[in-house]
C-alpha cells in the first residue's frame, strides 16, 4: 500500500458519471447519510465507539482536577485532542499535523468547545484554585470520509455518557469520592451540536469561476474517502435540535447557489434531530442497563448475609 492516496482516472470518471446520474458507488442516494453504529461501554463512563460506514473511531473522556487559568477563575478546562495516527490511514503521519488534520480539529473545536456545548462554569470547584479539567481524546481508527461528522457525534455522545466522580468541598480541602462510594455526576451539557458535511461536484467539464445561472452543481451528504478525494467544494453545517445554527463553513472553490444553503440547512436539521434522538435513546437504555446491574449487585449482597 502506498502512502499517498491516489485515485485512477478510470475510477474518477466512473464516480463522476455515476453522480451525474444520481447514483453513488455504495448505493446510497445523493442526500442520504450513512447510519452510524454507536456502542457505549457498559462498564466505563465516557467511552464511546462509533462506526460510521467504514469510518471507525473511539472517544474517551477523562477528568482531573487542575488549577484554572488566572483570567478565568470560575471556568473549568475542556480540551479536545484530535491527533490522527497512521492507524486511521497510512497517509497520516505520526506527530505531524497535516492541513487536513488542522482543519478537522478546528471545525470540531468550533462546533463543540466554542459553542459552549459543555458548561464550563459548572466545572468549577473552588474558584481560582480548583476546577475540573475535562479532556476528550478522539482516536481515529479507520478512515473512510466523514471524520468531522463522526468525531462530533462521538464527542457529544461521550460527553453525555461521561460521569465524573462526586466530590465534597470543605473550605480549601476537597475529597474525591470513588465510584463505589458515591454515584458519580453527569456533566452539564447545554446543547448537542451535530455536524453535517455536504460535498459539491461540478458536473461540467470546465471550471466554473463565476457563478452561472445553470445551478447544476451536485450536492451530496456524507461522502466516502473516494468521494472526498474528488469533490470540488465542501460545506459543514453545525446545527442543534433547537434549530440553532452554530457553524457554517464553506470551503473549496466551487460556487454554489445561495438559496441552496437554506435547503441544505433544513436537511441538516433533519439529520441532527434524528441523531440527537438516537443518542438520547441509546443513553437511556445504557442508564437502565446500569441500573439493573446495580440492583442485581445489591440483591446479591443481601443474599450473602
Amino acid at each position, binding site marked *: 500500500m502506498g502512502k499517498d492516496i491516489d485515485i485512477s482516472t478510470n475510477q474518477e470518471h466512473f464516480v463522476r458519471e455515476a453522480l451525474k446520474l444520481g447514483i453513488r458507488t455504495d448505493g446510497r442516494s445523493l442526500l442520504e447519510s450513512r447510519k452510524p453504529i454507536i456502542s457505549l461501554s457498559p462498564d*466505563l463512563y465516557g467511552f464511546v465507539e462509533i462506526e460510521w460506514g467504514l469510518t471507525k473511531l473511539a472517544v474517551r473522556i477523562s477528568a482531573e482536577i487542575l488549577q484554572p487559568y488566572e483570567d478565568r477563575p470560575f471556568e473549568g478546562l475542556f480540551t479536545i485532542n484530535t491527533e490522527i495516527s*497512521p*492507524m486511521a*490511514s497510512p497517509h497520516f503521519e505520526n506527530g505531524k499535523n497535516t492541513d487536513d488534520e488542522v482543519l478537522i480539529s478546528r471545525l470540531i473545536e468550533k462546533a463543540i468547545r466554542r459553542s459552549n456545548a459543555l458548561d464550563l462554569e459548572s466545572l468549577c470547584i473552588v474558584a481560582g484554585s480548583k476546577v475540573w479539567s475535562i479532556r476528550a481524546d478522539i482516536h481515529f481508527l479507520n478512515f473512510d470520509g466523514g471524520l468531522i461528522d463522526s468525531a462530533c457525534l462521538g464527542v457529544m455522545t461521550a460527553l453525555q455518557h461521561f460521569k465524573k466522580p462526586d466530590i465534597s468541598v470543605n473550605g480549601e480541602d476537597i475529597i474525591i469520592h470513588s465510584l463505589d462510594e458515591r454515584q458519580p455526576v453527569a456533566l452539564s451539557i447545554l446543547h448537542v451540536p451535530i455536524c453535517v458535511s455536504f460535498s459539491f461536484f461540478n458536473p461540467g467539464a470546465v471550471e466554473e469561476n463565476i457563478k452561472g445561472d445553470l445551478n447544476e452543481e451536485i450536492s451530496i451528504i456524507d461522502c466516502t474517502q473516494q468521494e472526498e478525494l474528488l469533490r470540488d467544494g465542501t460545506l459543514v453545517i453545525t446545527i442543534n435540535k433547537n434549530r440553532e445554527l452554530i457553524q457554517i463553513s464553506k470551503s473549496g472553490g466551487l460556487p454554489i447557489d445561495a438559496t441552496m444553503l437554506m435547503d441544505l440547512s433544513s436537511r441538516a436539521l433533519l439529520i441532527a434531530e434524528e441523531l440527537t434522538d438516537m443518542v438520547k435513546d441509546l443513553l437511556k437504555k445504557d442508564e437502565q442497563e446500569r441500573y439493573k446491574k446495580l440492583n442485581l449487585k445489591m440483591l446479591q449482597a443481601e443474599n450473602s448475609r
Partner: protein
Amino acid sequence: MSATPSTSILSQVDGSAQLLLGPIKVLASVTGPIEAKARQELPTLASLEIIVRPATGVSSTREKLLEDKLRSLLQSIIVRHKYPRQLIQVVIQFLSSDSDHSANAKAFTSNELNAAINCVYFALIDANIALFSSFASVSLCILPSSDSFILNPTIAQLNESESHHVICFDIKDKQADKILLVESQGSFSEKQFYLAIDEASKECETIHNKYQRHCIVEKIREDFVWKF
C-alpha cells in the same frame, strides 16, 4: 485468559487486530512494507516505526519506553532483510487500560506491554509480514510469602505483589524456544525467577496452541484462493 482476537477489522491498514485482556482493550495495526522516508531508510533492512498511543491523554515517555521494548522484540522477529529500504509501521492504540479503574495504575506497564505484544502478533499475521517464528508473552506476579504465580494479575494484585514479570518466548514447532524479552521488577530470588520462566514458557505454548494456531488456520482459509 481469553486471548481471542478479532482481526482484519480496519480497512486502511494491511493488518489489524483487537484484543481484550481483562480491563485492557488494545488495537494494533500494521502497514507495510511501504515506502520509507529518506531518514528512516536502511539499505539492507526494513525499518520499523512503532507508535504506542494511550487511551487517555497525550503519549509521554511512558509510551516511548513501551515502544522501545516492542522495538527490541520486533526487530529480531520480523524477517527484516526481506524488505530492504522499506518501512513497516506498527501502531498500538489502547482503548481502555488498567488506569481507568485505579489512579496509580500508571506505575505499572507490565499488563499493557503484555497485551501489546500478544495483540501485535495477530496484526503481523494479518498483514502477512514474514516472521522468523511465532511469539507469545505472559504477564505474571508473585505475592509476598507465597511461591505461586498469578497469571494476568489485576492492578490490585500487582500493587500487593512482591515482584512482577513480563516474559515473552518465541515458539517453534509448537514449543517455546528462545527467551525474547523479560521485564522483571520488584524483589525476587533466583529460584523464583527460573520458576517464572518455566511457568511462562508453558503458558506461551498454551496461548500459541489455543489461540494463535487457530488464527493462522483461519487466516489461510479466508485469504487464499485455494479454499479448503
